């Protein structure tokens, strides 16, 4: 009797030890995979945060510039007088997929805007790619649409973004001197407002990779 009970205890212990051996083996295998912060992508987290901040600063600087190529002037840089059909001034690159408006090359964008100058000097010259997207509310104000000022391809999953929202007013002047509310070719529509003073709010989004 007593011998049998002791035998059961021995089996229990054996079970415990076997399970621990297995658990340790699994843990060892898991720990063997080194997950460093850089495992997921090219740049490490600190560098990425730094670059994102630089892109954000580029937008802030461009928005506070008092010259005629600041951020809101860039958004309103619409040309209806050229020989081509209406489009962003001197934009010669093909439109982004599914979009109607011609886009800029990095050099072309640098010629036309403060934002383009900063982005070209800091990022394009160092081999980075970026898209500049304009996101705005539609006529009813309940859905959002977007168009591209610059399109260098579809962004990979490790891209990061910075954005700045600019306000357009009904009497904001476009590059050709017309008030924005009178132009029918401009892709950004007048959104639904009660006071008829604010035209639309446009988020300028820089996607960088």
């Amino acid at each position: 009797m007593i011998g049998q009970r002791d035998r059961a205890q021995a089996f229990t212990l054996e079970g415990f030890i076997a399970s621990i051996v297995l658990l340790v083996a699994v843990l060892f295998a898991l720990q063997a995979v080194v997950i460093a912060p850089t495992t997921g992508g090219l740049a490490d987290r600190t560098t990425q945060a730094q670059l994102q901040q630089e892109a954000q600063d580029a937008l802030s600087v461009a928005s506070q510039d008092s010259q005629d190529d600041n951020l809101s002037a860039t958004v309103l840089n619409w040309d209806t007088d050229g020989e081509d059909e209406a489009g962003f001034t001197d934009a010669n690159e093909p439109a982004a997929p599914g979009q109607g408006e011609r886009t800029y090359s990095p050099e072309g964008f640098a010629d036309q805007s403060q934002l383009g100058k900063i982005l070209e000097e800091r990022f394009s010259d160092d081999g980075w790619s970026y898209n500049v997207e304009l996101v705005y509310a539609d006529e009813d104000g309940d859905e959002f649409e977007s168009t591209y000022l610059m399109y260098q391809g579809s962004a990979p999953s490790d891209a990061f973004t910075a954005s700045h929202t600019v306000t357009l007013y009904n009497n904001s002047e476009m590059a050709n001197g017309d008030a924005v509310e009178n132009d029918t070719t401009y892709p950004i529509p007048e959104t639904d407002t009660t006071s008829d003073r604010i035209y639309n709010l446009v988020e300028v989004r820089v996607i960088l990779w």
Partner: protein
Amino acid sequence: MVTDRRRETDGSTNNRNRGQIILIGAIAVAFIILGIVLVFNGVLYTETLSTGSSSQSASDAATTETEITQGIACLIERLDDPANETEDVITDDFSDRYQDAKGESKPEVTSIAPVEPENFGDDNATVEVSYNSNDLEYTTTLEIEEANCP
């Protein structure tokens, strides 16, 4: 050893066998403790890895202030009668539109409310901005002048 025990059924042998089991039991407990240490170590490691940078939200808040200041300053510049009109445009349109535009791209809510509209002048306005995101919440009062428009 187990077969030995089966054959010898007297009390003294049984006690010796029990001593072995206690020894093995102690080793098992030691392994269990080691295992728990390993598991906790792993959990802490994962926690350290998954903690993201939260410093970005502070710069988001600064961006929000700049956007609102510029939006309202340029609005004042464009209105015919800013002292009477600014408050209406902010409450009717700008506040809602701004909230929608920001909410479309980031998990944050910003509300803008005029403060002391009776003091709104031809070139200034005071608004209270409440900013809420998942890791930052604050309320601030912005005194905006027409000169803030770039």
